[in-house]
């Protein structure tokens, strides 16, 4: 099933909403900054959304308060998304709009805080397991905030989570469980991922340099992104601004069956994900104009992904990772990079691999070191995660 994107929004370290993302991309301006996250003492750079420290949640929803749900709220307020959801509720009924959100750590900052309080001999204050810690917390919050009563789920497959939500939403619609869906991903900075990736020696001390010969790890970022999707055949194909609507033309999911924390060096799972997405979209590899790589900037990921890309597309198709702009937003990476794919199509513009100086000679894919302003009709976006979870999305216009 092809999905029409009725509206989408993303909030990243480059700012609030998709215009801020586009400005950052087109100005080659990274959103990364030295890590000053509370209680973190690590020599690394992060892609922080500073304003999510600020505004609390609406008063009647304050029991959901945690950094992740604040970031979700901030994201929901951009690009007229709330209004768009209200319209969808009127059209389809609140009980026929599904909710499919990706996250890897949900509200674990609240749990980290709880343990610090306990360490200091304090009684836990207003902690709620259901509203803060649980994976479903972000969906519980967004469902309540949007007044949706259709099927709701969290997909949590580490860094592929918010790519896979498109697949889950599409098959739920195909099964008749709902008629439209809010999909997205929200992951926020926390000590668990900062110190966890650091323990695996996967965190770079400098801004990440995807595909670079001297790359040495990730820069962790945070983001919230949402899209309202309906089946392409029921969409009128014209966006609010009168332009064409973007779409998800196909997806491919696969498993590495190799290792929990490192990719199959041969990239077989990644290759299967890309092939399946192309097959579903009905496109030959040469129809893809730009590949948005998972491109975490770890030595192992970029090498394995490069192999898989060359096996599917050869060495010509322009490719880049955009994690030098946003950092690796983990469970939100899928939706952030889908948004970058739609922007690339809308603007006929391919982003370069920001911060990359010289491409690793072992990586034979066509890594863009400069932006390219050439027509972009179809994009493939890769999202791969721990546990060997792979998802590729083929993005395009509605016909």
């Amino acid at each position, binding site marked *: *099933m092809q999905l029409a994107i009725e509206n989408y929004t993303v909030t990243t370290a480059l700012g609030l909403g998709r215009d801020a993302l586009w400005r950052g991309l087109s100005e080659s301006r990274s959103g990364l900054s030295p890590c000053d996250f509370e209680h973190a003492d690590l020599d690394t750079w992060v892609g922080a959304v500073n304003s999510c420290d600020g505004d609390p949640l609406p008063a009647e929803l304050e029991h959901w308060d945690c950094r992740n749900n604040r970031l979700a709220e901030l994201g929901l307020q951009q690009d007229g998304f709330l209004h768009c959801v209200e319209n969808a509720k009127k059209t389809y009924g609140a009980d026929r709009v599904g909710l499919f959100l990706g996250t890897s750590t949900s509200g674990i900052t609240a749990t980290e805080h709880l343990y610090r309080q306990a360490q200091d001999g304090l009684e836990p204050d207003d902690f709620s397991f259901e509203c803060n810690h649980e994976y479903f917390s972000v969906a*519980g919050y967004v469902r309540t905030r949007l007044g949706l009563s259709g099927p*709701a789920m969290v997909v949590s497959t580490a860094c592929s989570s918010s790519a896979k939500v498109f697949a*889950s939403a599409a098959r739920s619609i195909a099964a008749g469980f709902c008629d439209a869906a809010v999909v997205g991903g929200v992951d926020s900075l926390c000590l668990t991922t900062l110190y966890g990736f*650091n323990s695996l020696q996967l965190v770079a001390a400098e801004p990440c340099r995807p595909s670079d010969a001297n790359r040495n790890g990730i820069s962790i970022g945070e983001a919230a992104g949402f899209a309202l999707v309906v089946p392409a055949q029921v969409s009128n194909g014209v966006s609010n601004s009168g332009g064409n609507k973007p779409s998800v033309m196909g997806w491919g999911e696969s498993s590495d069956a190799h290792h929990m924390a490192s990719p199959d060096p041969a990239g077989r799972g990644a290759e299967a994900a890309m092939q399946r997405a192309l097959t579903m979209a009905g496109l030959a590899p040469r129809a893809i104009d730009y590949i948005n790589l998972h491109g975490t900037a770890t030595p192992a990921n970029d090498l394995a992904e490069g192999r898989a890309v060359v096996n599917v597309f050869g060495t010509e198709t322009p490719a880049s990772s955009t994690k030098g702009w946003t950092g690796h937003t983990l469970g939100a990476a899928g939706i952030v990079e889908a948004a970058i794919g739609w922007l690339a199509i809308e603007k006929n513009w391919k982003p370069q691999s920001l911060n990359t100086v010289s491409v690793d000679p072992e990586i034979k894919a066509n890594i863009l070191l400069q932006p390219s302003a050439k027509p972009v009709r179809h994009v493939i976006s890769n999202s791969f995660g721990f546990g060997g979870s792979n998802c590729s999305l083929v993005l395009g216009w509605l016909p």
Partner: protein
Amino acid sequence: MMAKQMKAYVHGVGLAAPGLPDWQTGQAVFRGEVSYQAEPIVANKIQLLPRNEARRAGLSVRLAFQAAEEACVGINTATLASVFASSAADISIAEKICSDLADPAKSVSPTQFHNSVHNTAAGYWGIATGCREPANSVAGGIDSFLVGLREAWALLLSEVESVLLVCFDTEGSGLLHAVRPSIHASCALAMVLSRKESGAVACLSDLSQTDMAPTTFDNAELEHFRQHNPAARGFALLSALAAPGKSQVVVESRQGSLALSVDPLA
């Protein structure tokens, strides 16, 4: 458009819970042939994983594997898609990591970190079976069983012929357990569902949203378990699978309960 109709055939069932250590015992208990005795569950050693990985796996992975391995006896797992559903995945690892992070040294174990992701069980299952098919890992709070069942159902309808559904939730310990008093015990259950009839033990059909009262247990202990562990919400369906004849089950959910017909095949 309402839910599309489909027959999903059950090809295997697995169970790992206190007093319900395997599906054979589960069938006898659910049929009322033996009384329910909540003896602690001891998770088996994982046979399918290399020794190092098996040693590192936490209770949630071991229980999920125990149920999944039982459900998959005689089934080719190398080409089987899967859905793993859990509200909290490996809660004991989250407890350990948050506790370590509260310490000034903030020393996190790298193995525990990569095993802290929700899809750890799905990832290890792929490694154990060599399966590169899609695997999803989903959460729905107390409704995680229903969320997993719906995802598996939708996969069967449009994308795959067979799917393994595994639901698990563990009790955890320490502070995270103290702030989650509603959880009861640790539990995993699994089912292989397929559109293929040959070799099936039961047929599921007529899946629909319902306002009917959920299917409950007369036995107070089992009913408490069903209400207080997300995976145990699936006991109602397992009980109907154990029954001699056709019945209708209502799986409870705050998202709207689901009714389905369960027809055990002779």
